[in-house]
């Protein structure tokens, strides 16, 4: 009995600091966020009165916020599509490499370590009217492109940047998933005459389903955190068509001084991300359960 109490105290002493940290820097700000979202908190005007759900009504009745959510969703779908396909094949390739596997893995992971703001600024410099991108186009015989006037190109560079940055991490996750597939299954399939393609479709992909589901949902959650590429490359150009929801929160809060309204938008995003997280947990738990049942 005494031994258990001692262990319990030891455990508490480890848990308390992080709990206090969580309370101070996560829970308290979260509660404040919910409170501000039902006020007209304006830093400049020094107003902070309760306004009920007025902010939420504004969000759900103004088309510009649906547009921002749609923009965020479109970018998320594009990032996931390209990121997962490229990440998967990169993982397959890295898995098969006999020499220099670690070196290549590190090389592909480097973009994940670079600050997004730095990479965004780099792209922004490339896209200046007489920047490298247009110099290449002109060298190939074309005319300089007005990158910022084109929705296509703005989406292209934002998606390219985020996909490139996340490719290494996605590949590492897929490699972890591939490591969990027993080589004996492949051997058995080879003996039965299955080609590489059939092995991938009927063995690899089904067994990777939990990892694919996890990456998909985490990717969508990550998409709601996109900000630097929009702030530093497009600034919403052309004409607000690349304004993601986080950019909207930022401009309302820090350019229009309306921290109360920005908080309300943040709460909406929080709820969406929470639902995605719960979905992720549901999918993950369901896959674990299926695996356990299959094992039995």
């Amino acid at each position, binding site marked *: 009995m005494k031994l258990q109490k001692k262990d319990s105290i030891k455990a508490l002493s480890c848990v308390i*600091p992080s709990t206090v*940290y969580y309370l101070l820097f996560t829970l308290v700000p979260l509660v404040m966020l919910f409170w501000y979202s039902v006020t007209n908190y304006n*830093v*400049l005007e020094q107003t902070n009165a309760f306004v009920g759900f007025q902010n939420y009504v504004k969000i759900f009745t103004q088309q510009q916020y649906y547009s921002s959510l749609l923009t965020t969703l479109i970018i998320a779908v594009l990032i996931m599509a390209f990121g997962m396909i490229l990440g998967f094949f990169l993982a397959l390739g890295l898995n098969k490499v006999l020499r220099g596997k670690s070196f290549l893995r590190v090389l592909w992971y480097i973009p994940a370590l670079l600050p997004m703001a730095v990479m965004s600024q780099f792209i922004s410099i490339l896209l200046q009217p*007489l920047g490298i991108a247009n110099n290449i186009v002109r060298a190939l015989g074309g005319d300089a492109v007005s990158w910022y006037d084109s929705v296509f190109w703005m989406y292209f560079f934002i998606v390219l940047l985020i996909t490139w940055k996340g490719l290494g991490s996605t590949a590492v996750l897929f490699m972890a998933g591939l490591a969990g597939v027993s080589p004996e299954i492949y051997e058995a399939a080879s003996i039965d005459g299955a080609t590489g393609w059939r092995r991938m479709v009927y063995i690899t992909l089904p067994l990777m389903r939990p990892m694919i589901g996890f990456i998909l949902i985490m990717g969508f959650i990550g998409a709601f955190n996109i900000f630097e590429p929009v702030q530093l490359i497009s600034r919403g150009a052309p*004409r607000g068509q690349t304004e993601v929801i986080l950019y909207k929160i930022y401009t309302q809060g820090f350019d*229009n001084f309306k921290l109360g309204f920005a908080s309300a938008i943040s709460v909406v995003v929080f709820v969406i991300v929470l639902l995605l997280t719960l979905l992720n947990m549901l999918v993950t738990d369901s896959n674990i359960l299926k695996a356990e049942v299959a094992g039995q």
Partner: protein
Amino acid sequence: MKSFFKKCLLSLLAAVCVGAAGCNGGTQNDPSKLTVWVVAPFVHNYAQVLKTKPNDRQAKVSKEIFEEYARDYPDIKLDLKNYGWGTELNQALVKAIAGNTAPDVVVGEMYVPSYIANNQFVPLEMGAEIENDITEQAAAYGKGADGKWYAAPVWTGTFGLSINVTVLIEAGILNEDETVKDAELKAAGIDPLHPAYWEDLLTICTKIKTHYTNAGDEYKGGMLLSNTHEGGAWRALAYQRTAGGEISTDNQTMVMNTPANEKAYQMLRDLSKTAPKGALESSNEEVIWTQYFFPNKAAYIVDGIDPIVRAGYFDGAGKIVPAELPTFKGSGVKSNVLVGTGYFSIVSKRNKTDYGTAQEFIRFLMKKENQIRLLNADIRVPTRKSVLESDAVKDMDDAAIKEPFIKPIIDPSYSFNGGIPSFLKNPATVWSKYDYFLDDVFKKDTAISALLTDVQKAMTDAYNE
């Protein structure tokens, strides 16, 4: 058991310290320290800059001014910081005020009136000698509705026409000796180095563009225009005011839809056709200068003193000279825009009543000697009438360069106050509507009058959102 509780308490204390560090109210109530947010020409880390660039003129003048302050006030430690300019500075200040970490003194321009209107700044006590000596143009942003001063204009600037003489020679407009070469311009009495009217400037720029188009080089042209966020509005205002137009009234009513503005924006559109290809896609003024103006790809740009000064540091830059801003034929309006003004204000703090140190600092900055130093070092136009009228200014070096930027302030035939309006509500949204409008002026064929009608409504709706 005791040691376990000790560990628990130490861990808890560590966590609380980490939390408390984030809640630091700074040195707000420490009378021996003054935190000041500065911007160029003041260099916050001038000592470090001078180690690698001993001739950096902004660092040198910063050292001169702030070391004099340190000698005059040895008990006060100055903590200088730089948080950018314009929107960037405004965002930083909003966050600082919300987080109770605002500086004691802050520099600013565009957003200053909105902070004054919302009682975020403390009334200044500069004294009658200084207050009565400040030019009327600079007072527009610095005073509140109650007539008190809240923002001291330490330096200012106006717009002029920056001219790349090398391009004019290359395009056959001028001879090598800078006399007029083009026969048509000569016959019309148009001086490309001092175009009095926008219409004359358009004629010159059209000729330049034709010359380069015929030579197969569409990446060179006559006029450079700013289609950038914020920068575009400032420079377009110069055209508007010389046509007799404005963006809004003093009480925040939009007045975009006027014949004067129509004239101004039509001229902007016509001039934009003479711009080098791609120039209107530049994201900021720095790109316009370094990719087009300094490398001799365009002849004219409306800007402050910066291109004139910075050209001297750009390898391969052509000969760049300034001239007075043109006006419109028949309008009879001589006007300009007060731009790049460094207003210094004292930020109001909760539970603080004694702002004596900050007030002294503001009075120190506003000294005549400092205004002369800034003019000599970085061609920052003084805001004190006695300085502008003094022999010290008249007899200074490079008077020919300084005059186009000082004349609009001292010449009584010029009429203007301040810069672009500071909107008290939804400024980001209002200006985004303006940015779309300006982009349409440059890139679409829709009638200017129609665009002005639309933007009048869009900006008004955004303001009232």
